[in-house]
């Protein structure tokens, strides 16, 4: 296991290198020169050159790339070009709001979708199964934007159950008052694809010999499903959840923007709009590293959940 882990960690290096090169290329050749944005409405070439010098974008590309690499090694991406805030502080202060929404969202949606998936897998081919699958197909076809617009209009505006948007000081207030509708939207969006996927996992297991054997031994259906089937279907489900995690943090920008949640996703979009390279660099590296770490964690978890799994 240790050798496997070390080998996988070593493989991070070329992957991360590729990500660094790609981000560097995209920013420098597609992103536009940030100095012109920061220079304001009226600026002369000397002022723009001064800004370029301060940002370091006047350096030769290899030097800029080396600075980027050093930043990754030190874990310090400097300060935002547009707000002057330390990138580390941006992450530290935006992580809390993001997690306030994402943790309950992920927990509740996983539990609900697993329960629903197990149910429809158990009654496969029945009217219930078909109805749920049709509902999931329809639900999956609708854009997240539509969910947000409709839920915000109905539950916040028409019914007044939640504030339209906002963010307070206390954790409980943020979780129960301001994040509630965002969490519901997130659950509604993720239920359909998750139920379909998890149903497939459960069906794969239900048809296995060990299930037939368990039933032949006279075990109750509840025990067969909740203990044996669930444990084995848990491996791909855990993988799916873990793989979603890194992207979720940065990718929840629509929910964060509409509901006024000061999270990381919203900050990423702001950084892109402002050509704020330090923040973009940090987010990209974070997503890449997190994805690799999570992949490794998922593989190691396989082994923990199912000792038959061999790590090579």
């Amino acid at each position, binding site marked *: 296991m240790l050798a496997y882990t070390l080998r996988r960690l070593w493989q991070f290096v070329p992957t991360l290198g590729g990500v660094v090169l790609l981000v560097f290329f995209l920013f420098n050749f597609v992103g*536009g020169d940030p100095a012109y*944005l920061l220079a304001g409405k009226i*600026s002369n070439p000397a002022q723009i050159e001064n800004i370029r010098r301060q940002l370091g974008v006047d350096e030769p590309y290899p030097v800029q790339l080396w600075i980027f690499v050093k930043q990754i090694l030190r874990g310090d991406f400097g300060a935002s070009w547009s*707000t*002057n805030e330390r990138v580390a502080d941006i992450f530290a*202060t935006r992580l809390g709001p993001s997690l306030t929404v994402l943790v309950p969202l992920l927990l509740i949606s996983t539990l609900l979708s697993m329960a629903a998936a197990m149910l429809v897998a158990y009654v496969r081919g029945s009217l219930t199964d078909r109805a749920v699958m049709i509902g999931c197909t329809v639900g999956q076809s609708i854009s997240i934007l539509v969910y947000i617009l409709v839920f915000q209009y109905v539950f*916040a505006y028409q019914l007044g159950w939640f504030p*339209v948007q906002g*963010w307070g000081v206390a954790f409980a207030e943020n979780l129960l008052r301001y994040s509630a509708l965002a969490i519901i939207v997130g659950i509604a969006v993720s239920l359909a694809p998750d139920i379909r996927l998890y149903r497939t996992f459960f069906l794969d297991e239900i048809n296995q010999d060990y299930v037939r054997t368990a039933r032949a031994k006279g075990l109750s259906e509840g025990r067969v499903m909740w203990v044996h089937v669930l444990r084995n279907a848990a491996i791909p489900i855990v993988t799916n959840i873990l793989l979603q995690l890194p992207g979720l943090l940065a990718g929840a920008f629509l929910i964060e923007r509409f509901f006024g949640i000061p999270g990381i996703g919203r900050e990423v979009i702001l950084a892109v709009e402002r050509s704020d390279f330090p923040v973009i660099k940090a987010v990209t590296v974070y997503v890449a590293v997190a994805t690799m770490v999570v992949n490794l964690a998922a593989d190691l978890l396989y082994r923990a959940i199912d000792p038959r799994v061999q790590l090579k």
Partner: protein
Amino acid sequence: MNARWRVLWFAVLLSAAGVAAAANAEKILRVTFQAAETGFDPVRVHDYYSGSVIEAIYDTLLSYDYLARPAKLVPNSAEAMPQVSADRRTYTFHLRKGIYFADDPAFKGRKRELTAQDYAYSIRRFFDPKYRSPYAFLFTGKIVGLDELGDKAKQTGRFDYDSPVAGLQTPDRYTLVIRLKEPDVNFNYVLSFPLTGAVAREVIDTYGEESPSHPVGSGAFYLKRYVRSSKIVLAKNPAYRGLVWDSEPGDNPRFKKIAERMKGKRLPLLDGVEISIMEETQSRWLAFQRGETDIEYQLWEVSPTFMTDDGRLRPEFARRGIQLDRTIDPEITYLAFNMQDQIGGVPNPVGGFGKERIALRRAIAMAYRLDDQIRIIRKAQAVRAQYPIPPGVAGHDPQFRSSIPYDPRAANALLERYGYKKGADGYRHQPDGQPLVIRYTSTPTERDRQFDELMKRSLDSIGVRMDIEKARFPEYLKLQKQCRVMMSIAAWIADYPDGDNFMQLLYGPNTGESNNSCYRSKEYDRRYEKSRTLPDGPERDRLYHEMTRLMEVDTVWLLGDSRIRNALQQPNVIGFTKHPVLHAEWLYLDLDPDLTAQ
């Protein structure tokens, strides 16, 4: 329940009611920004919204009369308007005594009075290269000795704040003397700009790089709570000197009503302002309707929902007591042509002063469907700009009419006459037989896609082929400043309410800075230089007229529109109207406590 418990229970109820009443009695105005702020250090910000907060926190030397139209300067922290020397090169300000900064640990428990030195220091900061101030242009090339100090700092890497500057003198604690290199009739406007508010040196020294999130000023409000890109809470500054509401309503009946209710009151009347950053229109619109916000003026996309075609509030909103304030923004949009003969060494088909080129530009301008721009893209919430100086800005002429009509038939005839013949594919060629392709540059936004379609339809109507060049905003700015945009739609909003701010956009030496058409006309430049020495008045107006006609004859621009700002307010908001120049009007507002409670 025995008597003792009853008394106790009654006391609890009374206390709860008292707490609730106190909470309700707090006058907190709730507003939104549609884009995130960038911070509150005046020399570092480059966005409108940060400027609004800065205006509420810091004191500028001069400000504007809230209701006077066109906008009129009044003293703010200065005792009176400055004494200006006969040669208009020396401005002397005397500060009011007894103005104090809001309390802050940087002052180590002492009350800190605002002095002339604070203004001198704050102006110097614009030239400190480490701040790369986007608004340094306000002072660039103007104050004797200041540019030189900035240049020296660029060489040494350190800005010397203690080095004397001949053009920035503080002979005593309350007197600031500014000496200019050239006469400047608009310099007072610069000193009313929110970013020229005074900061205290010890605050900047204390917070250093964190200064954008630790603003400390002597204005009406201070920053109470700040969640970046989400929530900005301002509270009434207990150290504020106070200001008596005294404004000139003129003949405007609405302004007169405001004046009747507000005159003589001591400001600020609000206990605080709560600003939420809401990027999405739906969120802002629903929040306003739910009563979660008090003023909303960034709803033009949904304006047909609450307004009739003739610009009045729909009855269902009027019945609820919602108020509507409509003002024309001090801005213009314009279709700009690149006037250079070549772009990056390649011949520019729309550039130059030859008759054929002028005819082509004129034909494009005559074919552009400006009415559709206003009707479809602006949703009728804009007025056509006839003159380069928009309403509400000194020098605006409401009688002036553009000499460039919408007339695609005449545009086609003009092109035929000057040799732009159509080929077999229906598109025209240049008079020398070369293909004619106009490159139109825009950003990859939804709004610009609408402009792209409109432009394509317009040019198709005269048989002119168009390529669309997409550039992200920073790249677009770069192309503009390098004179590499052939044709685009641009916009300019007033930095200060004087026509000079708009007429300078076509001044030759400003090429590469703000003259994005790269227009160089000796006739225009000569008149502009003369206009800069004149105050607002008939002589300057005559020059501006001539300059505008020159621009039209050369067809450098087709003037587009000025947007209408529709500000919705809840029934409890008292005294609101959008000022053409002030960023935020919070200082002049009140909330009706009875209506707030309802």
